[in-house]
């Protein structure tokens, strides 16, 4: 899903700092993609400018047999992920088109972001997610892509999303087939704040 969250993550990559890696491989560019399945590029690696937090995505999707809808929150947890939330963006997801090209998926969709808002901001949101209350609505209409694979080669149920244009397992999920409810919690890496 990280790749698919182009609008969010593109801005995140453009704005936040890495957690201090002195990369020998001079990464350049940012996750600034413009289509749901478009290519990603390497994250930037600026000099860390502050304490390190963990970006965490928490989402729920409900699949009704023909469409999927749900919500997702993008939260910055302070103190390397062990501290309190410092920033939270929330938004709804609504499928716009079924995807048939996700191998192994029971279902997969393009989904549109709507109703994006800032639920919490101690001043770190813009630097770490690329958005604050004045800009978060720019996420609305962004298309992301996700699929559910119930049995990814011994590693159980996973979320699938395009990475470099190819569907790839990107996170564990839990799924209730009785209700069609899929829950995920996906760490999105360490960032300076």
């Amino acid at each position, binding site marked *: 899903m990280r790749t698919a969250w182009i609008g969010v*993550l593109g801005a995140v990559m453009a704005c936040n700092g*890495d*957690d*201090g890696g002195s990369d020998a*491989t001079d990464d350049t560019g940012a996750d600034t993609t413009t289509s749901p399945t478009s290519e990603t590029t*390497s994250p930037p690696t600026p000099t860390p400018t502050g304490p390190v937090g963990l970006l965490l995505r928490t989402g729920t999707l409900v699949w009704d047999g023909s469409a999927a809808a749900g919500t997702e929150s993008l939260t910055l947890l302070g103190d390397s992920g062990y501290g309190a939330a410092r920033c939270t963006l929330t938004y709804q997801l609504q499928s716009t088109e079924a995807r048939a090209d996700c191998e192994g998926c029971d279902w997969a969709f393009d989904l549109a972001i709507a109703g994006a808002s800032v639920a919490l901001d101690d001043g770190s949101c813009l630097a770490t997610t690329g958005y604050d209350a004045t800009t978060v609505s720019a996420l609305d209409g962004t298309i992301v892509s996700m699929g559910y694979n119930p049995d990814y080669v*011994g590693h159980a149920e996973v979320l699938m999303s395009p990475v470099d244009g190819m569907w790839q*397992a990107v996170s564990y999920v839990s799924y209730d087939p009785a209700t069609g409810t899929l829950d995920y919690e996906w760490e999105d*890496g*360490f960032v300076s704040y």
Partner: protein
Amino acid sequence: MSHTKYAIALALGTAACAGEPAVTVSAVDARVADAVQTVVTLTFETDAPVSAAVHFGVNGARDRVAPPTPVGTTHTVTLLGLPAEADVGWEIRVDDAPVETGSVRTGALPPGIPTATTTGPRDGFLLTTHTTDAGDWVVVYDGDGRVVWYHEDTRGLSIYRAHPLADGTGIVYASAIVRGGPAPDSAFVTVSWDGAAETERPVPDVAHDFVVMDDGGLITLRYETRDGVLGNDLAAVDADGTVTPLWSAWDCWDPVAVPGDDPEHGWTHANALDRDPATGLFLVGVRNFATIAAVDLETRQCPWGFGGAAGTVALTGATFLHQHQFAWDEGEMLVFDNDGAPGNASRALAYDFDAAAGTAAQTTTYAPVPSLYSFIMGDVHRLDDGGALALYSVPGVILDFDADGAERWRLTVDEGGPLGFVSTWNTAYDR
């Protein structure tokens, strides 16, 4: 099957060794293994007890050498590291003097095997596993990405780790894990190089990783459940399959005090294991703590933890999350970091690590451009020339970085991932 029979009795090769008796070689037989068409078994007899060496290669070369045979009159040599459908020339030497030569052609690869492509040549070999819905394979690739050894497992469980046997006669791998958790029918499987001999040691609930001890015994991660909490332990597995528990995660941590961050997938979710020969410590990668824990099997305690929720080492620089394999050696810790980098990126991190002082400073990041991401699995090794090798499981890519962190070689499995762990060999006979 290709089969070349030689009934030649020659008295050669001793002219260069004045005064030594001539050796007659007979009953020479070069045979491609039925089960592994890239392995050749060369048998021959000598009329005097000697140790013989076989030099061999493809395309007319004799650039490889198998370990010398024990002193005797009946000799068997297994030629390894050969690509499929290749003309293999061989030369038997006694006291480094050639006494017989011949050639044989390897067979074709079976269908379904995970083939690979590379960005160029590379010395050495890579042992890894490939586990998909289409099949589970143990594979050795050469530096050109050619499959030089293979074995398909049909037990239906995942295969993440394979090691050479301590006695050099083949491979041992774990068939384990179903739907991300313990499998009661997991087992260690031993396969000879020629694939003719396969034995199984059932060990329930084997987890991701194990190590082979010098005496041939195994130390393995297993799943362990207490009061409904899914943790891990370490156990010894003897040659006869006897299992002896050695350590438990409960020896070092309390699930209440250190709960882990992904309870859907167990308390600890230990996913990597190594042994440091210098200290005798075992190192356990605890994914859900983002910690690499040193385990002392004598005291059943954890003298230090590297990173994460159970960390005791003071780290500076980049940190890792949900790491997979690591490598600790000579003041350095390498870590494959699945989730610590921002965005769609996994990476390998190098740290200067002073275990006695309990301090570590991150020095180098190994990451391709553009980035690759593997939310599970992954492996990293320090290479002899100061470079590093990193395996990205999900995309099915193995990368070789130079000492400065620049990518210099890449192997891509054509079918994609996931791959298991990887071992590097300088020659087909390294162990």
